[in-house]
């Protein structure tokens, strides 16, 4: 008797509490649309603290393709990236591939959110689809792949660099590529000794990407401990080198300089094709 009474009492208390919680959630979701800074910040804070409740409505908001609500979708994408929920990556993929999201800023934020979620595979697939026409978003794709030493990311960066004339995309791609080779250039011995590719801590750290490639092969001299031995480039490395070489001869002097300087640095440690 007492137990059932307690359960009833708990039920009576729980209903208003749940209703109150639902109200707060609705208020927070409405706050995402607000142009008042403090209202938005409070809303974002509440949603970030309640990821389970916030996830589904945020995913719905992201798919409400109404021009007036671009700011809300931008903020929803940002929060979904911060909530670290993998189901959101599938929603973002759907949004990108649908072609219904016309606002480039929202697409940039989705790319950034996917990078936060470790879903470079989705970013690469989207980039390869040829659906993206905005230079701003393409530059964001390149930046999202910065420091990623897996073959797929390198191949995509090489493709982006070789296929664009846009200065913003070119610079972003050169920057992203420099982040891949920087650790190798700084410490080539570690790179050679690493069991993985060893080129980036970021690569494949979340286990959602294909298995890392085998360590770069080296010349026999290298195995004997010769510091001057050079690494054997993979197919993706070679694609990047070719793209850098082509950019090194482009008409834009600033990009030419950056690409040539990076290629020169890389040639100290890698065998050039």
């Amino acid at each position, binding site marked *: 008797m007492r137990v059932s009474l307690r359960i009833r009492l708990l039920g009576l208390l729980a209903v208003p509490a749940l209703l109150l919680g639902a109200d707060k959630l609705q208020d927070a979701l409405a706050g995402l649309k607000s142009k008042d*800074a403090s209202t938005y910040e409070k809303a974002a804070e509440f949603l970030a603290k309640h990821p389970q409740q916030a996830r589904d409505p945020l995913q719905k908001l992201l798919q409400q393709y109404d021009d007036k609500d671009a700011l809300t979708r931008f903020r929803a994408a940002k929060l979904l990236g911060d909530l670290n929920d993998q189901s959101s990556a599938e929603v973002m993929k759907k949004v990108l591939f649908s072609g219904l999201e016309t606002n480039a800023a929202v697409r940039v934020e989705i790319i950034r959110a996917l990078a936060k979620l470790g879903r470079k595979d989705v970013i690469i697939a989207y980039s390869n689809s040829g659906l993206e026409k905005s230079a701003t978003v393409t*530059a964001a794709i390149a930046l999202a792949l910065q420091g990623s030493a897996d073959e797929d990311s390198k191949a995509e960066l090489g493709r982006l660099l070789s296929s664009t004339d846009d*200065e913003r995309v070119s610079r972003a791609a050169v920057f992203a590529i420099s982040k891949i080779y920087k650790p190798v250039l700084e410490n080539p011995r570690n790179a050679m000794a690493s069991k993985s590719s060893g080129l980036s801590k970021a690569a494949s750290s979340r286990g959602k990407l294909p298995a890392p490639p085998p360590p770069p092969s080296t010349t026999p001299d290298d195995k004997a401990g010769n510091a001057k031995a050079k690494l054997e480039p993979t197919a993706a490395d070679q694609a990047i080198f070719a793209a850098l070489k082509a950019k090194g001869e482009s008409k834009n002097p600033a990009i030419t300089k950056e690409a040539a300087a990076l290629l020169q640095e890389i040639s100290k440690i890698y065998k050039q094709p």
Partner: protein
Amino acid sequence: MNARAILPALCLCYCFTVSGCAPYPGRVAASLKGPQLRNGVVGPATETAGGSREMIVWNAPDLNNGQTWAFSPNYSQDDIDRSLNLCPPAGVLFGEWKDVEKNQSQHVAPMRLIHGWSAASQFAGSDFWGTHRYRDWNVLLVGSGGFEQFAAPANDPNFADWSEVQDLYVQNPEIGRIIEVEWDSGFFAPEMAPQLGDETVVVGRWDFDCGHESATKSGEVKTTGFRSEMHAPAILISAHITKNEPSSLQTRYKIFAGSRSGPLDTVPLLFFFQRLWGTHINQLGGQDYSIALQAPQDGWRIASCTSEEGTPPGGRSKKIETQLQPSDGGKSLTLTLLAKPFNSGARVGRSMIVNAVWVPENSPGRQGAVKCE
């Protein structure tokens, strides 16, 4: 013994807690304390349309001469490293603002000039009392051309700590980088700030805000360093079109100059002691400044002009005298701030408003010299 140790500790904790926010100055109108006008679209109000021209042209001195650092228009590791090196981890505790052009041989970094359009202009959401006398007035500038060399990679317009920036960016995804201009309202009059869409010229200290790192702390998007900004300015000039008719144009120019900018050099950990006497002084004195004020289009001449005193800043400072006269056959007004008689580190300032009426060059009427009253 315990009371002796605990009481000061409690007092210190309490003071740090309550000092989170710098206050608004009492003299500021209530209407300025809330959110200001906003229009997310950067349209005709913020850029010169076909046939139009800049309304403010800086004549002299050449403040960007001998610049030792310029950011590339997009991503460069050198640019990112520049801010990361100047803003070490926890560096914000030992001084939040670091000169972009750090030069050991100079006592202070030289003042620089940027030219853009105001995309937002309002009080900061909150500011740390230890490094501010009063809350900052913030202006968000967008620009083109030479503007870009002052904007660090972290100035990409997606920073999350300004909801106005999000709004602006979503409406204008291709907007390019944004620079903040921040001035302690204890030494600046918010009434003299540019309005939304106004053309704006800023001269002042070009620095990194080591409190605002870009990108995310988590995930695999790496940092692009810290934001660069103008903090604090020494001269802020804005131009606003008040009437636009085929037969006449009326423009208003706000000119505000001040060498003082509050205790921003204070070490936050020691602010209780330092902020009492610390105020950053821009080297405004020691030279004159010449600026041409123009109509927003070619083919207009000055018909009449008036100048009036603007709202003065708080605190004491010596007044910079000015000269205002038509030039280039009446096609522009030349304003000279006569700061040469003062020492470079003097506490000087000036606040004034110039109203001008422009008519088409071929319109009938007096073609002779116009005097500004």
